[in-house]
């Protein structure tokens, strides 16, 4: 009787030794793999590191008035709104006065590189997914997995393989931020009106002509929503990535947490919010501009 109660209240498990052995062997073989190939993999990612360092240096060494000018020009071209431009100037000055300019530039460079990489991999994957139902069936669960797995968990293998530093940070940010890019590219292309595709077919368009002339341009507003999502997710991941050595605003937030510096944390958090709003407004404005000819307004 007592035995049966045990059976129902305690879940039957594998023997503890077996589980321990399983964990040990997996970890050991992964460690062995990382010892064996870690250097190769690191050198494989070297160009990416150079690219990242280039952007960070560029942003940090460019005089601040130039940076503000460029960001404002982008914002104005996208939104045609003076309010947003003035808002950007005020908030960037705030960040600068509070001594966070350098950190913000470092974070900005990091976000830009992560976004570029996410677009460079996400769009082709999204297109492949849209063209092939089999690809969609394979990629969708992987994306689900990537999006639900807590970010801290996939920091572990990346760090084991590449150690602490910019590149593992960047990779984990890209992995975290790329799913919406892939999903929305796929969705945008699949949503293109069937009759318009038929029209392209009826004129004898090749698959490549259909993609470049019809599907991709018509999917662009949706793809841009993906870019926007990707940027926002990369910003959210910047703080977590600072735990494995990514510098910038996130690192300051981390320092604030460990030392209980409330004001430092708030200020740096605020700077991240400012960066997020600026990126969000600009990328959304460009997405809307692309759609403008569909609304029937005069241009």
């Amino acid at each position, binding site marked *: 009787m007592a035995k049966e109660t045990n059976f129902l209240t305690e879940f039957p498990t594998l023997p503890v030794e077996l589980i321990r052995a399983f964990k040990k062997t997996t970890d050991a073989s992964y460690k062995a793999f990382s010892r064996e190939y870690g250097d190769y993999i690191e050198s494989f990612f070297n160009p990416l590191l150079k690219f990242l360092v280039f952007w960070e240096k560029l942003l940090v060494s460019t005089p601040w008035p130039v940076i503000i000018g460029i960001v404002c020009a982008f914002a104005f071209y996208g939104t045609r709104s003076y309010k947003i431009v003035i808002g950007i100037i005020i908030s960037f000055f705030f960040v600068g006065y509070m001594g966070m300019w350098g950190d913000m530039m470092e974070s900005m460079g990091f976000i830009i590189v992560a976004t570029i990489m996410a677009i460079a991999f996400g769009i082709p994957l999204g297109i492949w997914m849209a063209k092939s139902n089999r690809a969609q069936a394979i990629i969708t669960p992987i994306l689900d997995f990537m999006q639900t797995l807590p970010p801290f968990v996939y920091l572990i293998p990346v760090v084991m393989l590449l150690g602490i530093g910019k590149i593992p940070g960047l990779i984990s940010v890209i992995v975290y931020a790329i799913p919406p890019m892939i999903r929305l590219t796929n969705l945008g292309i699949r949503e293109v009106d069937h009759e318009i595709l*038929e*029209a392209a077919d009826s004129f004898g368009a090749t698959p490549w002509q259909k993609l470049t002339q019809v599907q991709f341009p*018509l999917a*662009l507003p949706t793809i841009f929503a993906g870019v926007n999502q990707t940027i926002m997710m990369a910003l959210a991941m910047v703080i977590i990535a600072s735990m494995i050595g990514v510098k910038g605003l996130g690192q300051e937030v981390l320092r604030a947490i460990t030392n209980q510096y409330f004001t430092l944390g708030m200020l740096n958090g605020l700077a991240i919010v400012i960066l997020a709003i600026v990126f969000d407004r600009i990328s959304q404005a460009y997405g809307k501009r692309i759609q403008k*000819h569909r609304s029937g307004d*005069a241009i």
Partner: protein
Amino acid sequence: MLSNKIEIKNLYKIFGPNPSSLIEKVNNGVGKDELLEEYRHVLGLNKINLNIADHSLQVIMGLSGSGKSTLIRHINRLIEPTSGEMIVDGQDVLRLSQKELLEFRKNKTAMVFQKFALLPHKTVLENVSFGLFIKQVDQGEAEKKSMHWIDRVGLLGYEHRYPQQLSGGMQQRVGLARALANDPDILLMDEAFSALDPLIRKDMQDILLELQLELKKTVVFITHDLDEALKLGDSIAILKDGSMDQEGNAVDILLDPKTEYVKKFVEDVNRSRVLKAKNIMQDSSKISKELLAGQTMKVKSEDVIEKFIDKVVIEKPNLLEVTDKNGLSIGYLTSERLSQILKK
């Protein structure tokens, strides 16, 4: 006799996972409903045979679900048939390789769609030159050709607008110009005017007839509207549940409907608006001598009955003399026959 541009031979289309196994069943008389009920397959087209003469305007008519849109998509093979042949200029389109098929679509056919299917991100000019772009025609030349057709459909001045900035009628003019800019032999029009308001629809029909008078393309025109079919078609094919119900010119179909389905269609047509004097006139040999000797009233061969019926009512002639555009007599029409035709 005109030669055939398109010959459709024993064309079948069955939708479903295993269509070819069911052709024999369909051949043995299994109908659309039974096929769906028992075999879970949809009968799209059932043994279609149709010859379309060169330079003619062929209307294919039927209610929704009759298979007319499926049939037109077989001509440029947007849909693969289950079996059969689609001979265009002596060549079976269904046997073309993928590459040959693209060439065929680029050069032989162009299609106009019910919902226009314009590219919303391209201007009118870019839309019209889309076919030429696909053919990789030199840009300057493509623009020149496109502007010509934009002008012909009456859209000059709108070439830099986007489709969404135009009304439905104007959008379909763009669709028509896009098809014509490709200079195809065969123009495929899938319910091209069905989405337009009645007045604009009439305009577009007139534009099409006017262009056709000059261009003499082979036009395949799909519609569910009998009035439109009678107005446009040199010949009309009526589809029902994927099968050919009746085929012939407007007068045949109007005066001699072969099946109940066609009769129902024809019932509500205002004959006096559709039938022209030349359609219903008879040879002088069929008219009695006394009538021929008596007084006649002259009517033009191209006039529809509605145009001269008032005068007939007032003058009450016993015999109408049908004259061609040079005023020469080409046939006769007794008032008895006229009243019979109008009574149905």
